[in-house]
């Protein structure tokens, strides 16, 4: 894989305005006989946060993996800033990934690296133009932004689940991405920690104006951070719109989903 070039900020701005940052077009995906995504389509622009909700096992996480190119759809297109992740070559996929930040469900921190080294990982591999002290400063700024000053030398196994999520968020933001993908950011956290993570995501979104997708089954979290909600069932987007649109829907599944979570 050749050295990837990080697009300059001006290039990113032009690219972002020309078309939606994320454009999913009729994506389908099956695992054996089970179809987990069945013609899913939606767009997300910069400054928007789309919450994708649904029951467990409805393909929400698979959707994120397709967007970041970890899996290929059986059909359809996943256009990320104009690059179709389903068909692009390795170099194009790598270039697109440098403009995305991904927070995995369990943070997926590298357990042989310290907190500081984890957050610095994308900078070490993609910002050879930055000096060591500049990278250190950037890491400190990112950890300050997520409220984790003073934990630089700790190992991931020595911090709480909530702190791991914050480190994961800091790492996802290291390259100043245009797109932010969050897979169940509040999963496994207590209500207070969940609320703190929600507030942090909201603050970061307001500051960085990214195109964000949050996969969750936490309706309260979705109401807090999302500008739009897409509710999935049996691999399809059943309804997409604001929380008010969902409240006024007469679809039985939507009603059941809302009332269970509220």
């Amino acid at each position, binding site marked *: *894989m050749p*050295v*990837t070039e990080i697009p300059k900020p001006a290039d990113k701005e032009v690219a972002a305005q020309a078309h939606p940052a994320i454009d999913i077009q009729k994506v389908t995906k099956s695992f054996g006989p089970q179809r987990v995504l069945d013609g899913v389509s939606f767009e997300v622009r910069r400054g928007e946060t789309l919450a994708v909700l649904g029951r467990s096992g409805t393909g929400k996480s698979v959707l994120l*993996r397709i967007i970041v190119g*970890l899996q290929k759809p059986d059909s359809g297109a996943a256009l990320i800033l104009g690059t179709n992740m389903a068909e692009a070559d390795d170099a194009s996929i790598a*270039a697109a990934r440098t403009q995305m930040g991904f927070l*995995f469900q369990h943070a997926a921190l590298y*357990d042989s690296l310290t907190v500081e080294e984890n957050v610095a990982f*994308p900078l070490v591999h*993609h910002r050879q133009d930055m000096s060591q002290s500049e990278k250190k400063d950037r890491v400190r700024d990112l950890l300050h932004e997520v409220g984790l000053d003073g934990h630089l030398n700790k190992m991931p196994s020595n911090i709480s689940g909530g702190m791991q999520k914050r480190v994961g968020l800091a790492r996802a933001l290291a390259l100043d991405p245009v797109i932010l993908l969050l897979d169940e950011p509040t999963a496994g956290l207590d209500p207070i920690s969940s609320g703190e993570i929600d507030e942090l995501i909201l603050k970061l979104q307001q500051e960085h104006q990214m195109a964000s997708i949050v996969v969750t089954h936490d309706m309260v979290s979705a109401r807090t951070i999302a500008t739009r909600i897409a509710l999935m069932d049996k691999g399809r987007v059943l309804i997409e719109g604001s929380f008010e649109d969902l409240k006024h829907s007469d679809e039985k599944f939507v009603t059941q989903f809302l009332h269970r979570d509220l």
Partner: protein
Amino acid sequence: MSSTPQVKPLTPVAPDVTAPPGLIVAFLDWFGEFGIFFWRVLRSGVTPPYEFAEFFRQLDEVGSKSLPLVAAAGGAIGVVLALEARSSLVRFGAKSLLPATVVFAVVTEMGPILTGLIVSGRVGAGIGAELSAMRVTEQIDAIEASAVDPYKLLAATRILACIVALPLLTLAASACGVFMGWVTATLIEPISLVHFINTGFQGAGFKDLLPPTFKTSVYGLIIGSIACFTGMRAKGGAEGVGRAATTSVVLSSLFVILADVILVKIILLLFP
């Protein structure tokens, strides 16, 4: 007139030869996947940028940290060889051949194969467990999502570290084996170290020293490749991690032994 009922002759049923046994399919499937994996690692490993920092870190893990165990094992083999060989040689009135017996046995075969099997156990299990744990906790996915090639960062560095470290560890094992062979011999019947070494290496040539040592690079390639392959394709949580570690050790040990058989023959053909 009554008609005799026609009896159809029995038609022999041929066995279905189009469906090979499941074990053969699984075997071929494994080799196919391994081939694809190895090609990806090779392609990533030769393409810049290179992960020098990770390579040196792995060289320390594989080499430096295996040294005490390999040296101890080499020393033990030297002791055993000296005791067993002396007992046999005395019976045939050839105890003067003891130094050469110990040196040739350790340097040409025992040192290399022992090093290969010990590293296969320690490093094979370690790499298999580490990478499988990274796989099941999505760390490898996170590396890939960060636009970093996991085949280059994780696999190529470890395989290259094994290839470089094995000959160095073999030299250490052989040195300890020869030294402890001398210690054992001299405790029974005093002989100077200089005399032991001179007598032991008398008549030894290039083919007795370097090819057997550097064949362990092939062992390193086998151990590193199999351990990385089984680790990076692991599934199934803690059970998957355990299975990956065990499979890594078993398969790398088996293939190291098979490779030894083939490499010994090749060395004898190339250096008659």
